[in-house]
């Protein structure tokens, strides 16, 4: 599978653990789940994918959704502070 450039944004706990709000990276991950697995290994994210949501191009999507070059991917955990 060829590598593609994807723009990724992190929120809440993920932003803390990644130490950044966003980045553009080159990945061979085919879908959102593979991308998260790759990033989880890199940044030691504690949250399993079941506990967060992924949004692709401004729409909440499924983990199995295939990624294509130029996609904007957002990983968001639920937050409840008030």
């Amino acid at each position, binding site marked *: 599978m060829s590598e593609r450039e994807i723009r990724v*944004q992190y*929120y*809440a*706990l993920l*932003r*803390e653990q990644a130490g950044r*709000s*966003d980045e553009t990276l080159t990945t061979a991950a085919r879908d959102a789940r593979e991308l998260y697995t790759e990033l989880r290994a890199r940044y030691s994210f504690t*949250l399993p994918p*079941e*506990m967060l*949501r992924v*949004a692709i191009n*401004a*729409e*909440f999507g499924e983990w199995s959704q295939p990624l294509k070059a130029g996609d904007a991917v*957002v990983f*968001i*955990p*639920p*937050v*409840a*502070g*008030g």
Partner: protein
Amino acid sequence: MSPFRFSTSALDTVALQRQMRDESCGGFASFEGWVRNHNEGHAVTRLEYEAFAELAEKEGARIVEEARVKYGVTRAACVHRVGSLGLGDVAVWVGVSAAHRDEAFRACRFIIDEVKHRVPIWKKEHYVNGDSGWVNCERCAMPGAHTHEHEHGHHPHVHVPTPDYSRQIALREVGPEGQARLRSSSVLVVGAGGLGVPVLQYLAGAGVGRLSIIDADRLEPSNLHRQTWYALSECGQEKSSLAATRVRALNPEVRVEAHALRLDAHNAERLCAGHDLILDCSDNFATKFLLNDLALRTGKPVMFASVYQYEGQLQLVRGDNASACLRCVWPEARDGLVGNCAEAGVLGPVPGVFGSLQALEALKLLLGLPGLKPDEMLIFDLITLSTQRLRARRQPECEAHRRAASSAPLLAPEELEVQFGSLADAASAGFVFVDVRDTREREAEPLPAGALHLPMSKLLTDAATLDLAGRYLLICATGKRSAAAAGLLRSQGFAECRSLRGGLKNLKASA
């Protein structure tokens, strides 16, 4: 004649003056305000006046009566034009008759000054260049009570100002109709903390007719960096009543109710009844999901906001079967998964921004203006200042939608404390016991075999031996230490741990 009225037709000043005649009066003074051909450097061709009649007539009559009492004059009246006026037309007329000229002059002056300050009337000026603009110059919205010094050595007269919505009524999208709509609206605000404070401030300021506040907490010093409405000296007091007092001080026209309790499955429907809109300003998923269920059950919209450190999320749940609810987005969310303000920290203005957004969206919703769509979540990262509107979808397998359709009872939030008649009952409910008492207490009154021992002193270090998803019942003598321990473990991610309400003492008492 009525002391204050509006007229849509030209004023007959001769007829008006005739009505002021009285044989006991030795003097008559009158004032006429005319439409002039310029204002602040603009050449004016004509004017339009508009008034919020219901409020304005009441306030105008009050002014005339005040003048009559204050100066002891015999007759006093004021008539104000509304509608379209040409140059030279009489816009406002004041007439006063009294035994002597001095009272007549002063009462006349008082009435016109007060009318200009206090009566909600707006003026649209049409300029020679074809432009026009609404001017709120008839009223001076003065912060706090203003004092009028009157000549002739009279004592200064202080009057209590009335709420003035002129600055928002001036908006074309609001106008007098929008203001009346806000006045007849009723909003429930769940949580009077970081989000609730700005929400309540703006909704009270805007003149929303009725506000209900639910908050079980008491003010703590650690709240104040983000809940800047309150005072350090008020720590220990119930936030719901502190907030209600401030709402009344900000706007006495708002009917406000304070409920110092936690929203639960038993009281939720009763507390939410009679409100047009619910704002979730809570800090836990248990409350949020309960409100979500309630929205789906009743069809009442709930505006959710949640913050974390430097960011937050905003979502509107319409409560219909077609659009996404909170559970459609977060099927697996529960308390203890990610930190709250206490553990993760939060910068004060962050809930301030989101509470303000909530208030803004609430007002727009009540006014029928466009805003956040039902299937949308707004996320705002206040570190990078980037916003995103993410589209969510109604999930076909959504648990909350399914329950609402089946009209099953509301789910109780994940209560921290549970009550049992006996330990046997608790064991049969599937709980593993965790004894948080010290060794001496434990030996004096042991728990059944199989109970874990995790004294308070070792709670945090030994918690690692527990299973995150374990169904634990924390037990102590009176239920106080175990409740604190359960709270602590919850915050560490042990979502299923509970405290035995009342402790062992309560079991014995009820046995």
